[in-house]
């Protein structure tokens, strides 16, 4: 009888720990999913360049351009799929990429400034 009780306790403890671990794993799921998302969804505009110049993101990602330069800039895609207004210092522009593809863009004030967003 004592052996049965101890077996039952051991089973219950094992089951309990396993269940608790499973719940903890569930709680951590969103965090893990967030880690899978690319963290570089922000493009900084500084010193007459886009950084990073090339960005790879999954479909549905919102990319934000922030002008850290002292000079106004824009972010305009060559296929006209997105186009920012003139961004003064610290101003932002966001665009959500809903279709896969390669989006090349440039600053319409300084056409030498180019960048690329690859949506996978």
């Amino acid at each position, binding site marked *: 009888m004592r052996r049965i009780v101890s077996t039952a306790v051991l089973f219950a403890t094992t089951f309990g720990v396993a269940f608790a671990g499973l719940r903890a794993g569930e709680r951590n799921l969103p965090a893990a999913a967030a880690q899978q998302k690319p963290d570089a969804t922000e493009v900084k505009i500084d*010193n*007459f*360049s886009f950084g990073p110049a090339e960005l790879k993101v999954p479909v549905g990602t919102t990319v934000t351009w922030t002008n850290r330069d002292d*000079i*106004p800039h*824009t972010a305009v895609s060559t296929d006209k799929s997105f186009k920012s*207004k*003139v961004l*003064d210092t610290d101003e932002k522009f966001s665009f959500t990429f809903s279709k896969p593809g390669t989006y090349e863009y*440039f600053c*319409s*004030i*300084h*056409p*030498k*400034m*180019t960048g690329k967003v690859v949506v996978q």
Partner: protein
Amino acid sequence: MSVNPFDLKTVLLAKHAQHVVLIHFPIALFTVAVAFDFLAQWAKSRSLAAAAYFNLLLAAGFTIPVVASGLAAWQFALEGQKLKGILLMHLVLGCISAVVIWVVFLIHLRARRAPEKSLPTYRLSLEAIAVLLVVVTAHLGGFLSGVNGPG
């Protein structure tokens, strides 16, 4: 996508490269004209005054394509959106500079058409103010175009 100012095709076809190229002509012509006019006043030289007049004539003439190409750049590159900050300041000062260059030229033209009257001395103050305006506008333009940066 890069713009080479020495490539004629690029200069003629690029949507806003013309302004950056053309702007150097009235700046140079006007500053040289003012220098000649100051020298003509100091040396009482008719030939220097004539040199100042013809430089002013060309400078005033060049302001037309420069202002037109600047406005075209605003329309083509920025699609005429509302300007603010440095861009707005550059536009306003550029237009004022063009008007003052024309006023200075018309003062010289008027004096030239009436040789019995000498050029008013107040024009020198106006020319100095105009040079200052041109310098500030050009500085803002250079800042915008990124001549001091890698762009």
